[in-house]
């Protein structure tokens, strides 16, 4: 396993370097001037120019890039242009919010995705299958924000059982915090889980056709045990891959859900950073997100290996 991970280092590094260049250049391609944002709507061109100099934006791009990269290696992520604060602090303040959301929706994604998939893949009653399939198709077609709006309507307006706006850190107050977390996590996880469920279901149906299922039947193994011990474990691979890919999304990309549920997470930071040309923030977030996606991929492979001895030992 370690050997496998070490083998991946060069390609991971390559991706990250390329990403850093793109992350550095892309925000700067956006027309506009961060100094103009700092200066405000009424500012004159002179004020903006003075602020540009102060922010160091008049230096050559190459030196800006290498300063940034150099900083990264010493743990300095840079200063936000707009807030004049260390980027690490800006991210740190929101990381918990995003992590909480990602973790809970990750858990929900796994529970619902795999649960729904198992349901669809193992039920033998026609009607149950039609019902589960229908739910699944509906969820597949429903975008997260629509689900979010619906949840807000349902729980925030019609039955006021759960808060629909804001957040309380789970670490500060677990009981309350988790209540704030439930709806956004659901809105994020439900539509995604439909995709995962679809994978599990398809795979289960395919695995059911495998010879080793016949062997199990011929041993006299009861159907339930077959489902769990033989079908299920062989069916999770593609779902794990999908969840692995999605988890990166959860961590870094819950932009819309954060907006709708008024959470101040990294997604919001990224959007506002992009919209206000806060290059230094955006570039770190992009590199971070790609990094997480890469880590997610590696983790996926580790989990796959845990699930499948052929990968682990072969």
């Amino acid at each position, binding site marked *: 396993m370690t050997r496998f991970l070490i083998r991946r280092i060069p390609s991971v590094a390559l991706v990250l370097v390329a990403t850093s260049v793109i992350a550095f250049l892309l925000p700067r391609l*956006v*027309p*506009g*001037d*961060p100094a*103009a*944002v*700092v*200066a*405000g*709507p*009424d*500012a*004159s*061109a*002179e*004020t*903006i120019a*003075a602020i540009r100099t*102060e922010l160091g934006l008049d230096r050559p791009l190459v030196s800006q890039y290498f300063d940034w990269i150099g900083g990264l290696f010493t743990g300095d992520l840079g200063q*936000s242009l707009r*807030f*004049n*604060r260390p980027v690490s*602090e800006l991210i740190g*303040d929101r990381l918990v919010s995003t992590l909480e959301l990602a973790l809970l929706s990750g858990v929900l994604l796994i*529970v619902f995705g795999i*649960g729904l998939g*198992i349901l669809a893949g*193992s*039920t*033998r*009653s026609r009607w149950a299958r039609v019902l589960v399939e229908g739910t699944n198709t509906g969820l597949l077609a429903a975008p997260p924000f629509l689900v979010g709006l619906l949840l*807000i309507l349902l729980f*925030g*307006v019609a039955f006021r059982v759960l*808060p629909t*706006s*804001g957040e309380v850190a789970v670490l500060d107050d*677990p*009981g*309350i915090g*988790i*209540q*704030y977390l*439930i709806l956004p996590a659901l809105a994020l996880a439900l539509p995604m889980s439909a995709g995962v469920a679809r994978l599990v279901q398809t795979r289960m149906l395919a695995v059911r056709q495998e010879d080793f299922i016949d062997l199990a039947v011929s041993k006299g193994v009861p*159907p*339930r045990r077959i*489902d769990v011990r033989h079908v299920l474990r062989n069916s999770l691979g593609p779902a794990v891959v999908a969840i692995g890919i999605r988890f990166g999304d959860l961590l870094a990309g819950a932009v819309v859900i954060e*907006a*709708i*549920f*008024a959470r*101040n997470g990294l997604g919001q*930071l990224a*959007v*506002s950073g992009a*919209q*206000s*040309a806060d290059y230094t923030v955006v570039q770190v977030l992009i590199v971070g997100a790609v990094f997480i996606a890469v880590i997610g991929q590696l983790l996926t492979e580790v989990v796959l290996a845990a699930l499948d001895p052929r990968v682990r030992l072969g």
Partner: protein
Amino acid sequence: MRKSTTPRRRQAGVAVVALASLLAAGCSSAVNQAEEATASGGSGECQQGGTVVAANSSAPEVSRVFAQSATNLLWVRAVFEPLINVSTAALDDPQPALATEWEISDDGLSAVLQLREGVTFHSGRAFTADDVVFTIQQALDPATVSDVKAILAGWEVEATGEHEVTITSATPLTDTLASTLALTPIVDSESYAGLADGSQLVGTGPFTVESYTPGADIVLAKNTDYWQDGLPYLDRIESTTIGDSTAQVSSLRSGRAQLSSGLTVQDALSVTEGSPQFELLDTINGTYPIILDAVEDQRVRQAIGYAIDKDRINEQVFGGRGTTDGLYWAAASDTYPEDLAGAYDYDPEQARQLIEEAGAAGTEVPITIINLPVIAAEYEIIANNLTEVGLTPSLTALAPPDYQQRLSAGTGGNFLSLRGLNGSPSFLLQTNADLRLEGAHRQFDTPEYTELATAVIEATSPEESAEAVYELTEYMNEQAFLHSLVTAPGAAVQATDLQDVDVVLGGWVPAATCYTE
């Protein structure tokens, strides 16, 4: 054969257990908790204590303490106080704040201010005249964002006593002193470096900064050493950022927030209409002009003025809360040229005729806007109107960095603008980016305009001033290089059980704000 329920049951079981444990852990409901915070209602006596959650659509920006900024509306006057407060409702009636009284000389070129004694910064240091001098120096720094830099640049400020300041100015102070000082809150010289990045936010206001999360929220706690006895009432203010309007609306409805700013009027109305819990609150007055820098033909510019249905904009975008006199000036001021109001009332026929005369049918009218819901909504009606009279509007919607850069560089073309209406015509002509003579975003510039505007700025008596404004306004109407479409107060939403939510230039002054029984 057909029952393989265990995995399913087990799954369901897991879910139930998870939910149950969650509910058990949270036997205190977040919803109830949020409601408790607001659960008072009724009106009457001011209560000591309580927390206000104030939601703003944009994040606090500490670098803009010296500017009128919507992003700082709900916290900055809680921490930083100016010498003079100017209520947005009464621009001509400035109120003492850190200055107890002031006197302007007859020629209007100098003023003496008496400062309040016994005021301390949050750090404990006493406030003196030197702090005023320091503050104004900082405001003049090229990299400082200040709305009133142009005026301050003409000032000499001198500490003529421990609690006395004398200002001498190149241009008359009569119409500008109050607004200028109201927008320049006093900062602490010792911690000023920490203001740049928000690590130290020290002022003299009724609340101290407990925590500041850049880009997200700022939490304020009661300043127990506040100079006004018995104030403030509130214990805490959480000024938080909710960018999405839907989320902000739901934060109000769910009882999380008691004060909110940055919603469009329509959104605000959707919360307040028919609701006993919320009401609208007027904040800073703003004017919403269209600047026609890229329309060469004066007749077409005039035609555009006639073509735009300002009343419908007022009604559909501003909830009917604004005025549509077509003038840039605050109607409440003494110098308001009433005769000239309504020159460009909606008259599509007239517009068509002018366009025909100019042979401009089908002319492209590119319009640059900042990508904000209100402005975009305004544009929708304008575009519809212009199409109706035979012009071809087209849109460039820009994010703030791009929009502001283009405007300051004078490459915005025709643009929709949004400016605070913070003072007299004289004040606006020196500070407002659409009107001012130097560093203006507007590209229209003629000797006549400079002359007429200078006359307004240099007027010392009210009569002189009124006449100069009249002449300037006449010229502006004729040239039609900009049309003020709507003048409307910013719309905030407040919970009805909050009392004395005062708004001055700069933002909400929470000193006297309290919950009622």
